[in-house]
């Protein structure tokens, strides 16, 4: 489904799109509830749950103590016994505090029980740097979770994706980690009022192109579109692909594109070393080796914690210029 199919030209911010998805999903299914720190009375520090408490009450919009393991366990226990919880972990950096629950319990329960568990659990969190919040409030750790069988992972790149992927995530009968990006919350785009799903596992070709493929996730999708414009002068007609779902990854769409364009680059905000871009690049060279005219490039954050000082953070966060430079570097004198 692409934005053009939207039933109305209504524009919504990213944060409003997430909030609307929550509200509509809670109206649709009485077993859906949301729990997390300050998601109720305060409406979440990011505003994504504003208004939910008033409409659905404290039984379904649950403020919790600062106990991430407890919150995640509560979501798992409720999902295993018939409810459809949405668990909010304020910042993705805090996933480390409940990592065991996510990785050893949530992801594995179904398999360990021989399939006899249905876990319709959605985990919602906020990733990304660029807000002067320093090393413990700015990380993008999607690679960890994509490495864990039993989880699905989605990363919306805009308001339209934020709503459609949230709907698919909450309706899915498996644990799905929804990674939103805090620096995109103010972004506006067309968002249909009706409940719509963006299918999990299906990539979206954001910008069709013929001779270079950029696979970008989250905030880097927008940056890649800017980069694509800058690269026109280089004689490059860049195809930009947003996987939307990182796990399962839509290898097919990406490989088909690269077989057509013969050159590719992956862009994400996370640290480059060991980032999900490595997996994408490895798969591309495996599946499209004979079609590649250049190595698959990768753009990601340098190998350092996220610095506080704006002077350093602006050097840290990848952007369109960095993508353009990397594209030119890998093409070198091959163009």
């Amino acid at each position: 489904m692409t934005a053009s199919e939207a039933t109305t030209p209504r524009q919504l911010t990213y944060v409003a799109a997430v909030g609307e998805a929550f509200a509509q999903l809670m109206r649709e299914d009485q077993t859906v509830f949301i729990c997390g720190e300050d998601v109720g009375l305060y409406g979440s520090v990011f505003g994504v749950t504003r208004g939910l408490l008033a409409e659905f009450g404290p039984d379904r919009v649950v403020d919790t103590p600062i106990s991430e393991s407890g919150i995640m366990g509560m979501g798992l226990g409720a999902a295993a016994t018939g409810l459809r919880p949405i668990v909010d972990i304020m910042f993705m950096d805090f996933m480390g505090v409940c990592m065991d629950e996510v990785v050893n319990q949530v992801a594995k329960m179904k398999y360990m029980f021989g399939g006899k568990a249905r876990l319709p659990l959605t985990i919602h969190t906020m990733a990304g740097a660029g807000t002067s919040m320093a090393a413990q409030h700015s990380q993008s750790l999607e690679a960890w979770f994509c490495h864990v069988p039993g989880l699905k992972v989605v990363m919306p790149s805009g308001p339209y994706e934020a709503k459609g992927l949230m709907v698919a995530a909450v309706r899915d009968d498996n644990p799905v980690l929804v990674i939103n990006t805090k620096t995109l919350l103010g972004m506006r785009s067309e968002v249909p009022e009706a409940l719509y799903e963006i299918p999990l596992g299906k990539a979206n070709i954001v910008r069709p192109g013929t001779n270079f493929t950029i696979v970008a996730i989250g905030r880097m999708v927008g940056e890649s579109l800017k980069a694509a414009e800058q690269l026109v002068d280089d004689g490059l007609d860049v195809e930009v692909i947003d996987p939307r779902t990182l796990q399962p990854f839509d290898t097919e769409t990406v490989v088909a594109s690269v077989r057509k364009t013969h050159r590719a680059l992956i862009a994400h905000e996370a640290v480059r070393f060991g980032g999900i871009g490595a997996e994408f690049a490895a798969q591309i060279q495996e599946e499209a080796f004979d079609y590649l005219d250049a190595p698959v490039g990768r753009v990601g954050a340098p190998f350092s914690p996220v610095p506080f000082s704006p002077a350093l953070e602006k050097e840290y966060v990848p952007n369109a210029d960095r993508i353009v430079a990397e594209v030119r570097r890998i093409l070198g004198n091959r163009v």
Partner: protein
Amino acid sequence: MSLSRETLLDIHRRMVRIRVFEEEAGKLMESGKVPGALHLYVGEEAVAAGVMTHLRDQDQITSTHRGHGHLVAKGGDLKKMYAELFGRVTGYCKGKGGSMHISDLDLGMLGANGIVGAGPVIAIGAAFSNKFRKTDNVTVCFFGDGASNEGTFHEAANMAALYKLPLVFVCENNGFGEFTSQERHQAVHDIADRAAGYGMPGVIVDGMDAIAVYEAAGEAIARARRGLGPTLLECKTYRFFDHVGIRGMGVIYRDDSEVIEWRKRDPIGLLEAQLAEQGILSAEAATSVRDGALAEVQEAIVFAEASPFPPPEALMEDIYTTAGL
């Protein structure tokens, strides 16, 4: 509370079934027939039986790595249990979980768990669900003295008390976390002392006395069902065997004399004496209960050993829920 004859015999039968199940399982592990590591429940039967006799199938429990006893007491199918220990496709988890993940969601048994302290936070979710769905089902969370030092217990206890969840925390204090005695892993003698810090009652009971456990658990469970919130019930018990396997004596981390002392208060022997006194269970009757359990267990073992291993393609199945379940 005076217990009916039926209830007393029910408790006794559950305890004997656990004992026999564990003794046979232990031998099979030591002989290498059952793969992996088994954490056996022998010596602690009064806790599982005394608590579980109050529960319905809809009531949930979260278990531990030492989980066979909990599932047997909750009414688990011995055939499926043994098949699981043997890693066979007919097992509770199709052979994918084994002893440390044995479970039966239909019986509300939310799984043994390989992670110490994993149970409490899952238990608050099940309890929350019972309350959310306006049922009067309760959830019982079993955990050990060692697990009482994991942060997860703390978070779950606080949330359970805060939300007044229909939950009972049953601490199986057997004096050891693996090979570390309680006085070497915490500065308090009574784990029940931690209850006050969360705003819930803390109760201590003799975990070798099945009737005492039954009565104390009864009150805590009734309280939870009435919507009055959680209770922390500490059962003082003892692990007769080693942390893993069946060897109980001659170990480096505890004196044989201590084991001998505790064995004098074998929970099954204790209950049988009480029942004999009350003329409810004769020695012969007791023996036939044990024989019956043994026959059942042997049948389960035969079933398990005769069952096929899962086929290779099963490896990639049951990871995700596709259509429906």
